[in-house]
């Protein structure tokens, strides 16, 4: 019997995933601690909840994106998808007066766009980057055309509860985030679909030759990305109380950044949803901290860019050291 090329001498050590999550969590706690030292108001429950609520919006857009990226794809259309879904849902709510129609429309539209992405990539064999990039323009354009320069505003209170309401003292968007996060986590780790998604992302050819129905799984991943964009659009709509055709576009790059800062690699096959949640919180807490330290808003893009770079370089160094030792 041969000896394996590597013998991990720390059998009880953390799995790489868990270590990455823990690292990010510790970083968040450190930043939070430092900010509390600067301003005790930071640690107040209301501020923490407020911050989590902000992070939750970012997370919701990034969640489906995380699934797609783990499966070896990319979805640039999430922002535009969110815009269009929100606009259509707002129109549905305004015309029917029934929030549930809005929910149905947003989720339907979001899912449909995701489905179209999946079809383009499967059937027409367009690279994901380009197919979803094209979809970005199309969805954004339809949203402009549909809204015709107007804003749809004044959602019924029953609907606004999604964005502004509290349940057990915690804002509803945070609950929704928890549910989505849990659902994605279960999907990734407790269903066969999730395991196949990781495998596809890590090696698509091997997945295909292992009997994974790659095209069907991929379609589902894009549909899920569309679905979470639809859900996010509802929370945005409820939170903002109005639909404008400009709301989603600025969210795309921050969402991608949240996924990357969360430790999911663009190459696919690794990462997890918890990382994305921590990534969203990390990006939010840093902005929050900058405000607290009275740093001008003009610094935000710089700091966000630096965080992305530091995160990927740190992951690289850690993974090199890991494989270097092995």
């Amino acid at each position: 019997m041969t000896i394996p090329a590597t013998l991990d001498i720390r059998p009880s050590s953390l799995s790489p995933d868990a270590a990455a999550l823990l690292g990010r969590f510790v970083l968040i706690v450190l930043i939070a601690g430092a900010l509390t030292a600067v301003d005790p108001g930071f640690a107040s429950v209301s501020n923490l909840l407020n911050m989590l609520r902000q992070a939750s919006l970012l997370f919701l857009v990034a969640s489906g994106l995380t699934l797609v990226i783990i499966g070896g794809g990319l979805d640039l259309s999430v922002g535009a998808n969110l815009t269009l879904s929100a606009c259509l849902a707002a129109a549905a709510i305004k015309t029917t007066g029934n929030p549930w129609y809005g929910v149905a429309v947003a989720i339907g539209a979001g899912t449909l766009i995701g489905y179209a992405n999946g079809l383009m990539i499967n059937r027409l064999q367009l690279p994901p980057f380009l197919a979803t990039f094209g979809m970005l323009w199309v969805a954004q354009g339809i949203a402009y055309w549909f809204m015709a320069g107007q804003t749809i505003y004044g959602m019924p209170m029953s609907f606004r509860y999604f964005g502004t309401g509290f349940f057990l003292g915690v804002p509803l968007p945070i609950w929704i985030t928890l549910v989505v996060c849990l659902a994605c986590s279960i999907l990734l780790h407790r269903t066969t679909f999730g395991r196949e998604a990781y495998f596809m992302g890590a090696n698509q050819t091997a997945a295909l030759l292992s009997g994974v129905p790659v095209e069907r799984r991929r379609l589902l991943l894009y549909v899920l990305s569309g679905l979470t964009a639809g859900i996010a659009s509802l929370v945005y709509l409820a939170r903002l109380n109005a639909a404008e055709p400009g709301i989603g576009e600025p969210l795309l790059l921050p969402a991608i950044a949240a996924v990357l800062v969360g430790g999911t690699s663009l190459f696919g096959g690794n990462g997890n949803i918890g990382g994305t949640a921590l990534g969203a919180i990390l990006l939010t807490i840093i902005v929050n901290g900058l405000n607290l330290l009275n740093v001008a808003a003009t610094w935000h893009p710089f700091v966000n860019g630096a965080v992305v770079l530091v995160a990927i370089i740190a992951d690289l160094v850690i993974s090199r050291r890991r494989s270097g030792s092995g």
Partner: protein
Amino acid sequence: MSVTIQLQRRSGMGQFLSAIPGAGLLLILMLVLFTIVNPRFVSQTNLMNVGLQTSLLLMLALPMTLIIMTEGLDLSAGALLGLSGVIVAEALLAGWGVLAACAATLAVSIAFGALNGVLIAYLSLPAFVVTLGTMGLMQGIALVLTNGDPVGGFTPAIETFYRSQLWFIPTPIAIAAALYAALWLLLYRTRLGNYVIAIGGNKDALRLAGIRANLVHLAVYVLGSTIIGLSAVLLIGRTNSAHPTVGIGMEFEAIAAVVLGGTSFEKGQGWLFGAVLGALAITVLRNGLNILSIDSSLQVVCIGILLILALLIDQARKQFVRRTA
């Protein structure tokens, strides 16, 4: 199996036609349609407009072609354009000479190009992520330098330069043409050009041929940044002021132009002239729709559809070629 196979020739009319990417076909189609509907479309003024608008997009799309040919991407191009404009403007306002201002921009562009290049070429990090990060850095610096305000009131020489003409050709068009010629020479007539294509095609083979592939890879990013940084002079000439956020989104337009032109994200398959076709297609589409007074919202949809259509045509063309080969 026959011993000699009729090889595809890169020259010759037949090959030329079959090498026209989807963008080329769509471009011809648009030209014909727009001309029929509104003959003013081909008026000298309008062609000049199209030329000027295309030339600016090309300043980004041409270096982007080289970068995409190395299986890379530069999301930070637009942000660098904004930042460079700000630096030129601020330097001029601070009393620097035009050349000194350009030198300052050059230094910053090279530094950021080198940062992108080192992370991508030497550390093998994905270009998408790296340039997403540096995009934030550049945007941030531009905003901090200007406090978010547009910077104006610098020497009118810059605008005069933008509006000037060489013989009968507006300077920006001449510059874009010169850039095209220079990059064409670089890509198709120098060693470095071969190596650029080789990086995307088979970086290991390039290494086996004894070339410092990483250095070439780095050089592509530095070259791209340099061009983008200098083209900021044209942009602030056009707007007579420097806006820190002006370039945001232009990188995507440039990527769209390159992809429309038939350059692929894989294997170093690319075509410099394709970027010209792609940039023209986008500009002509926007210009034509403006001239026909088509609603802005439909313009956005049209760009998306144009992109997907061009990709589909290319796909079909490739399959056709493969079948006949």
